[in-house]
């Protein structure tokens, strides 16, 4: 496709959007009288409902339906695909890795972000220090994975051969021998998790730093007068005051971690027992031509995300109610 054709298509897409909005506005203006509000609301909601139904509800229902069928999607197999997920040794490894990711990433990333936010709070060069840790956030997952792939890169410790991986070069300087970081399970999963933490700690830091700054001055003052030390301040004042922000950060990173795909696919391709549910779902569906198992994995991912989202919403409601 030539560049001009691409621009024409883009132009057409923008016009299509304008046209749809135009039609909706046009129809909405046709209503008048006492019942108009309700009708206008319906007209405005309708496109959203249609799009959610077509783009989310229909594929979701279809995926659940497919997960009860075999690889080709032709014959009904009941809960066989789900049984495979929980019994085949490869799939159990995938589940174990996903658990590792979800347990380690949110807590470590949030902890690092929180400690960092407190340490640099009101320090000199605060915004510069913030920018440093926030920068990785602006890099795409694939970009970050490629960067870290180079950090972990292995070259043998031989004459005439230069290390090109940062971690191994440091190790060689310290007198150690270079390691293949991404090959040995289960440790390799932790080396992948580091990448996610590197990206997400900045997000945690930013949100928590804002929350810390919003703690009313008088509470801090009162605690000081009562003779609370630095640790006590953290334990009894800071953390309780920013609890809602902590929950949002933890759950957001948790959901993001459950869906992690780019890092695993870019760095190991799911080899060396590093696959996670989202990556396995992709390779079963599109590489292995096993639609049933792929759909079952997608459904599992969906089921795992639900409690986190539900908890998140409940927390939000209780904060609003206060």
């Amino acid at each position: 496709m030539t560049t001009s054709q691409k621009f024409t298509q883009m132009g057409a897409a923008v016009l299509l959007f304008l046209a749809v909005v135009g039609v909706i506005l046009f129809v909405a203006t046709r209503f008048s009288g006492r019942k108009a509000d309700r009708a206008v609301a319906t007209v405005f909601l309708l496109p959203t409902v249609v799009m959610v139904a077509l783009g989310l509800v229909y594929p979701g229902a279809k995926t659940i339906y497919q997960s009860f069928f075999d690889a080709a999607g032709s014959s009904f197999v009941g809960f066989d695909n789900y049984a495979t997920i929980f019994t085949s040794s490869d799939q159990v490894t995938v589940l174990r890795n996903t658990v590792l990711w979800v347990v380690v990433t949110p807590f470590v990333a949030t902890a690092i972000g929180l400690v960092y936010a407190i340490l640099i709070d009101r320090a000199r060069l605060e915004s510069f220090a913030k920018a440093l840790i926030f920068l990785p956030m602006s890099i795409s997952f694939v970009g970050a994975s490629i960067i870290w792939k180079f950090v972990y890169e292995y070259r043998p410790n031989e004459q005439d051969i230069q290390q090109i991986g940062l971690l191994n070069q440091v190790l060689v300087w310290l007198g150690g021998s270079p390691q293949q970081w991404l090959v040995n399970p289960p440790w390799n999963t932790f080396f992948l998790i580091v990448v996610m933490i590197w990206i997400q700690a900045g997000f945690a830091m930013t949100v928590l730093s804002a929350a810390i700054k919003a703690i009313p001055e008088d509470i801090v003052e009162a605690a000081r007068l009562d003779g609370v030390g630095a640790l006590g301040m953290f334990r009894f004042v800071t953390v309780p005051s920013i609890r809602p922000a902590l929950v949002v950060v933890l759950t957001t990173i948790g959901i993001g971690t459950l869906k992690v795909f780019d890092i695993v696919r870019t760095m190991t391709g799911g080899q060396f027992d590093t696959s996670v549910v989202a990556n396995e779902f992709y390779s079963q569906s599109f590489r292995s031509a096993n639609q049933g198992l792929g759909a079952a994995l997608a459904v599992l991912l969906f089921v795992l995300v639900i409690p986190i989202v539900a908890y998140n919403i409940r927390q939000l409601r209780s904060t609003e109610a206060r």
Partner: protein
Amino acid sequence: MASRPTKPLNLLALGSALGLTFTLAACGGGSSSAAGAGGASTSADCAAYSQYGNLKGKTVTVFTGIVTPEDTPYMDSYKPFEKCTGATVTYEGDKSFETQVLVRAKAGNPPDIAIVPQPGLLKQLVATGKAKEAPAAVAANVDTWWGADWKAYGTVDGKFYAAPSGASIKSLVWYSPKEFKDKGYTVPTTLDELKTLSDKIAATGKKPWCAGIASGEATGWPVTDWMEDMMLRLSGPTEYDKWVNHTIAFNSAGPTAALDMAGSFLKNDKYVNGGLGGVKSIATTTFQDGGLPILTGKCSLHRQASFYAANFPAGTKVAEDGDVFAFYLPGKDVTSKPLLGGGEFNLAFSDRPEVKAFQTYLSTDTWANNKVASSPNGGWISANKGLDVSKLNNPIDKLAAGLLQDKSAVFRFDGSDQMPAAIGSNAFWKQSTSWITGQSTKETVDKIEAAWPK
């Protein structure tokens, strides 16, 4: 409260809705056309094309995974046909061809011709019911220009669908002609001699072999090629076919011995991994980097397909008297000459006369030679017996084409490309990788057998 939009806004809304209709109508089709005047290679000699008749105004669409820069020679090779028949050939390349072509076939929107790189995918496409059997003229051409084995790869359930297009040779070992000359090594002619040579180099304190199997999610595929080559050599073509078609189990004696044989090279820490580390470093070295230590003298031998020539840095002379070259991975003895390779097939989804005519053109020796003429840098060969080897543009193409046309050579198609996707593009790769990082041969073949779709 609700302030109502004024009339001009209404007009604007209608106006954009109308404008859209026209814009969409003006914007159809996205693929680049290969049509154009001026044949690249052949002059006005249209005698060979008269059999296709006058196809003025007719269009044939081609869909393929072959993209820039390899697509230009394809488009150029269609030009004589377009010029002489008046037909237009529209070429569309897409890197995700393998998944897209299936989606398009299932959705009822297939191209006229698809260039399919794997017999396994060919079977899946035929199973959609949208593919058309090859016309008699194509079958006749294939009978004339290709061996029966090649015709068999384009045949599904006894019906012949697709003529072969390009081909590549995998049974090659890359080496440094200069090193061989300096050290007095000779090119081995049997597997035993290859072992002896490896031992001889290893005795000098140098790791003779280098390898790399990392390739993103496809990591492990070079091991599958190693195993296929060894299977062909140790058990012979008949057993090889049984293994590929799963009439013998993946963990039976033959395949197990083949993987063990591959292991005697790849998992031998006296042999690997020259300039790259220990045995495990094979798993994290990309296949593109796997053979490069030959250039620095850190490694002497690297088993990889003919296309590997493109991986050497610019300025490397790939020739029998150059920096690197390849020799045929020898058979078990001098008389047997099994050859592992791959290739593409032209599958049609339409039987309109112009599609049939174009399909027929692609199955002739005329097209094969036109294709070579439009590939000035080489890198393309075909198993078409009408291919003029002397016209090939580089030494490695000549070597590969010579092997393909060798009457004593027995050709077999890459086995993993023919196995079901769950094996050929998943379990086989994955378990091969685990095998490199320490899993035993027995466990590896057992796990692949267990993953075979029931």
